[in-house]
C-alpha cells in the first residue's frame, strides 16, 4: 500500500513537471563542494506583455556573511583572521546585503574582489599546508601556472561544467604565464604572483558569489 502511495505521489509530481524546471543550486562553502537540485516555477519570458525593464531571476547572490564564509572555507583562512576581519568590516557596506541580483553593481564587484584579495593575500602569506591542499605538489622552483590554475579552478569551481573548468584553467594559466614573463623576477616573486592572482581571479568570479 505504502509503495503504491509513493508511486502515485511520484506520478503526480512528474505530471506537474511540465510547469517546473530544475535549477541547479551550488553550495561551495567548503572544500567538499556539493551540488543539489531544487525546482522553481517557470519564470515568464520577457515579452510585450511584460515591463521590458523587469528584472527576472531564479538565481541570487550570496549576502556578505555567506560570501565571507564561502571565501574562508575555500581558502582555509580563518574568518577571524585579523586582516580578513578588518577588510570585511570595511567592505561590508558595499557587499550584498540581500540575495537579490538587482542590487548588484560595480561597487559590489569591487568589494567582492577586495575581500577575495585579502583572503588570497593571507593564503600566500600563510602556512604552505593551506596552499598544498588546493594545489597539491605546488613547487616554487618548478612552477607551472596552468597546474596552479587547475588546483584553484577544480577546488573553487568544482560544481561547474567540466568544459567550462577546462576553459578557465587555460584562461588563468595563460594570463599568469604572461604576468610572470617580465624579466628579472625571482622564483619567489613569480610564485607569489601566480598564486595570488589565480586565487584572486577564481575567488572574485561569478561562480563564487552566485546562489
Amino acid at each position: 500500500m505504502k509503495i503504491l502511495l509513493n508511486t502515485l505521489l511520484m506520478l503526480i509530481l512528474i505530471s506537474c513537471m511540465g510547469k517546473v524546471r530544475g535549477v541547479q543550486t551550488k553550495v561551495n562553502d567548503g572544500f567538499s563542494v556539493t551540488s543539489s537540485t531544487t525546482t522553481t516555477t517557470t519564470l515568464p519570458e520577457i515579452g510585450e506583455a511584460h515591463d521590458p525593464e523587469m528584472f527576472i531571476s531564479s538565481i541570487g547572490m550570496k549576502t556578505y556573511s555567506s560570501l565571507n564564509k564561502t571565501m574562508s572555507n575555500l581558502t582555509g583562512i580563518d574568518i577571524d583572521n585579523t586582516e580578513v576581519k578588518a577588510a570585511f568590516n570595511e567592505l561590508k557596506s558595499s557587499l550584498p546585503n540581500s540575495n537579490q541580483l538587482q542590487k548588484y553593481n560595480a561597487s559590489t564587484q569591487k568589494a567582492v574582489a577586495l575581500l577575495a584579495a585579502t583572503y588570497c593575500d593571507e593564503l600566500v602569506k600563510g602556512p604552505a599546508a593551506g596552499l598544498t591542499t588546493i594545489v597539491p605538489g605546488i613547487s616554487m622552483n618548478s612552477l607551472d601556472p596552468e597546474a596552479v590554475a587547475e588546483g584553484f579552478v577544480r577546488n573553487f569551481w568544482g560544481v561547474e561544467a567540466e568544459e567550462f573548468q577546462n576553459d578557465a584553467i587555460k584562461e588563468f594559466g595563460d594570463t599568469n604565464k604572461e604576468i610572470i614573463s617580465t624579466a628579472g623576477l625571482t622564483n619567489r616573486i613569480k610564485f607569489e604572483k601566480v598564486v595570488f592572482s589565480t586565487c584572486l581571479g577564481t575567488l572574485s568570479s561569478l561562480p563564487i558569489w552566485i546562489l
Partner: protein
Amino acid sequence: MSNKLTKLEKHLIKQELERLRKEDKFQYDFIREHDKMYSRRDFMGLSLLGGYSMLALPGILSILPSRLNAQDMDAKCGSTDSNAANPFAGNIHLELAGGACLGSAFIPYTMNGGNLSNSGYAKFGYSPAIIPNSDNTSTEFGAGIHKESSFYKALMKTFQDNDIDPNTLKGKLQIITIIARSENDNANTESSCGNLIREITGAGKIADIVGTGRTVNGIRSRSAGNINKYSSSLISNNPSSVSGLVELGVIADRLSKDEAEKILKAAEKMSARRLASFKKQTISDQLKTLIECGYYKANKTVFGNDLSTISSAGDPIYTGIFGAADFQKAAITKLVLKGNARSGGIVLSGYDYHNGQTTGTTSGHTKRFEAGTLVAKIVSAAVKESASLTMQVTTDGSASCRGGNVTGNVTNGILTGAGFYANRVEDASVGMELKIVYHPNGFKEEFTSHQIGGYTESGSINLSANAISNNQTTKSIAMAANYLNMHGKIDQLDAVCKKLGLTNPFSDKNILNSVLVVKEHA
C-alpha cells in the same frame, strides 16, 4: 525560420543532454520520460536549446566572439570616465535628524500665498516685532526667507566667504518650500527620492548612491519605491572611503596595475561566460547586462580613472569651501556634482531642538545656521563647478514655539534670530521641507510659485491641500517629477514609477500641476 533543427542545434542538444546526464540526474530523467519532442520550441521549452543564440553551452562560447569591444561595452554600460560631462543635475538629500523648524526661517504662507495670523506666525517663532513683511523678507532665492533668521544669515555669510555675489545667483538658484507633514521619526518613511533620481539618470559613473549612513539609502529615511533595487556606498570622513571606490587596496601590494588588470579581466571574461550559460528562464537579459556591466565598470573605474579627478581631497574648490577637515560632505558633493554618483545623502544630527534654548550650540538658531551654511557650501561648489544641482532638505516632524524668550543668538560672530521665540514643543503640524534647484544657465521660464501646499491661517499644515500634504511617498514622487521637469522629461514619470514598483499618483494633469513648480532649465 524553419522548424527543422540545424546540425549545430542537434549537436548542442546532444551536448546539453550529456551534461545533464553527468550533472543533473533529476532533470535528465525527467527529459527522458518526457513526451517525444519535435520542434525547436519543444527543445527550448525544456531548456535544451537557447532562445536567441547558442549561449546555453559554455564550451561552444569559445568558438564565438564572447565579449563586445570596449566601445560597445561603454555604450552598453555607460561611461566610467570621471571627467565626462554630466547631463543630469546632481542630487543631494540633506536630512536634518530630529525635527527642525524650517518655518523659523522660510516664511510660511497659506495655500493662496496669504499671510498667517499673528498667533499662526508665533507658532513658527515670529514675535510681533518681526512678523514677516516685505521689508524683512528676502525673495532673492525664490521662497520668502526672513532676513533676521539664522538660515538666511548663514546663506549670505557663506556665499560671501566663497566670493559669490548673491546677485549673480538670481534666477539660477531657486528655493521652494514643501509643506508636507512628516512624523517625528521618519526612519521608516519614504521621504527620499534617491532611488527615483537613480532610475531617471541611470547608473553613476562610479557609484549609484553615496551617503553618510551605513544604510541602503545612505541616510536614515527610506527611498520611495523598491528599496533594494539600488545600494549606497558609505562615505566617511576618511579619504579612504572615496579612494576605496577606485583603488586596488591589497591587490596593489601584490601586483602591478597592469598585472592586476590582466587577471581581473580574465575573471571578468570567465564570469561573463558563466553568466551567458544561464538560460533566459533563469535570469533575464536585463540582469545579465547588469552583472556584465558590474564587472566591466568595476575594472574600468579602477584602471581608467585618476583618483584626483574623483576625490575632493586636495581639490582646491572643495577644500576651499568645506575646509580640509570636513572631507565627508565635500566628497559626497564632488561625487554627485561630477556624476560619479547619482544621488548623495547627508544626515545632520541634533535637530531635536525643542528645548526652549535661544542660545548655545543646541538652540534652533545655531542648528539652522549650520544647515544654512551647509546648503550654501554645496550650492557654492555647484557654482564653482558650473554644475547643476538639486537638493531636498527634509526633517522628521518639527518643533513649534510658544512665546517666551526673544533674545538673539550670536553664531560665528553674527547676531541671528533676534526677535524669534524659541522652539519649545515637538510639533509635526508646523513641518516644512525644502527643494533647492540650481542651474548655471538658469531656467527657461520664471517660477510662478515657490511653495507647494500651504498652512491654515492659524499655522498648521493644510493636510488636504494636495496629494503630498500628508503622504511622504507621494511627496518623494513629486520631487522626482520636479527633477524630471527640470530636465524636460516629465513625460517619463509614469515609466520611472513603474520601474520601482510605484503607481504614478500624478497621472491626472491637474493633480500633477498642483505639485509641479520647477521649470525646465535653460
